């Protein structure tokens, strides 16, 4: 099955609308890009779009009620909501140190959830 997609390039603020076609995981550029760096971006966006995920997790007995978190690596776009669902279930105890692993291998992605802030008791 062939899918045609229009991808807005974010490499620079011109924001070219790059038209691509994906046939069985094969990438084909149809045009719209003003420069070469747009091609790589469009390719990764068309075949395997990923996003860094940031949110927060509840904290028990902390100076703040929340600790901010991030994914250790970019998460596949279609898995974002299942990862968020897992994050919402968690509550950690203070103290929390920045960089600490909050959840290992979240939602079977092999990606960890890390604290991005230190929270004192």
């Amino acid at each position, binding site marked *: 099955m062939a899918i045609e997609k229009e991808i*807005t390039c974010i490499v620079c603020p011109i924001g070219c609308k790059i038209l691509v076609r994906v046939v069985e995981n094969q990438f084909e550029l149809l045009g719209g890009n003003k420069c070469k760096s747009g091609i790589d971006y469009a390719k990764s966006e068309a075949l395997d779009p990923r996003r860094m995920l940031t949110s*927060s997790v509840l904290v028990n007995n902390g100076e703040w009620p929340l600790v901010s978190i*991030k994914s250790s690596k970019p998460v596949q776009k279609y898995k974002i909501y299942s990862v968020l669902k897992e994050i919402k279930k968690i509550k950690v105890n203070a103290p929390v140190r920045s960089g600490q692993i909050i959840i290992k291998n979240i939602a079977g992605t092999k990606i960890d959830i890390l604290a*991005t802030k230190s929270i004192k008791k």
Partner: protein
Amino acid sequence: MTNFNTDVAVIGGGPAGLAAAISAYENGAKNVIVLDRNKWLGGILPQCIHDGFGVEETGSSMTGPEYAEMYINTAKKLRIKFMNETMVLQFNKNRKIIAANKKDLHQINAKSIVLAMGCREKTRWNIMIPGDRPSGIYTAGVAQSFINLYNIMVGKKVVILGSGDVGLIMARRLKFEGAKVLGVVEILPYASGLQRNIVQCLDDYGIPLYLNHTVTYIKGRERLESVTIAQVDEKIDIIPETEREIKCDTLLLSLGLIPENELSRNVGIEIDNVTGGPIVNQYFETSLSSVFACGNCLQVYDTVDALAIDAKKAGENAAKNTIKQNKKINIKAGKGINYVIPQRISKSGKIRFTLRVKKPCVSPTLRVISGDYELFKKKLRWANPANMVGFDIDISDETIKAKGDLVVLLDGY
């Protein structure tokens, strides 16, 4: 009242204040104090939990809290002094600062002052939206602090007015927290936030962006019940027949930021009407000698990286404090340019200028002229008001001696 002396006093402990304080210390000021009204350091950064900070500076993308922690740790190692929960009430032309906290009133006599007070968000009253005054209307940054710091959700069905970056980032954040985000409404024909945020915060989650639209009415008795939006024409006049009501319980305002300069104004520092920040020279020194300005109280930056780079220079100059201003040349914003910083120069050398253009355009030419003479010319691939433009020029002794104003303009605009 306590009374003490310091080499450099920094007003504001956000990213600009921290960067300036560290740089002042590293450049020889052994007595550096940072005054901040919050109980924490880092200013707005702890609530900016998204990533993208520090890319230009460090090469790796950090979240706001991580970026803040990096600076706070460095500052603490250097034995820079901090006074938190301390409000600067005023300072005078001799750099005597009066500050208050729960313990006492303090008089701080500083050889140099660095202004790093940051900025405030524009509110409903800056653009006078007609209608009722229900609850459920927040500025985007306030909603961000409620959700990311205090665990308070702001609403369930949200409309966002203004397409600034904070608003776009909040659209995604609200979606993550289970709210329905009905759309982002922008009066201009283009978004004011970065393209990256349009794609990753709106397009990714199917949130519509209504360009050439604005909110014309706010309705609700206790809580917000609906907003009316309408299309505007080229003159930004409302087209009445396009009005429609959107049921919602929350309106976020992302209308732009205003540098915070009450302290600067009170002491008589000259303010640029366009930036809303102090007029500075190439050393980031304001019209009051030995008082420097940096960060978002100088101009609203689009990345913390560019902000920190300039703040470090301001801190360095505050530490050295050997500036003699005599021949002043004004830098003027010409065709297509909204503003240029510094607004004044007084000495030859390599000078970095930052500016914002008025409208988005493709392949314009940036020119700097002095009378008939062209000092600088650069072809840009694109220019956008959302992206600050920076460039270096070698200013010769002759240019300084000529005393003629420099005009920065955009050709092909």
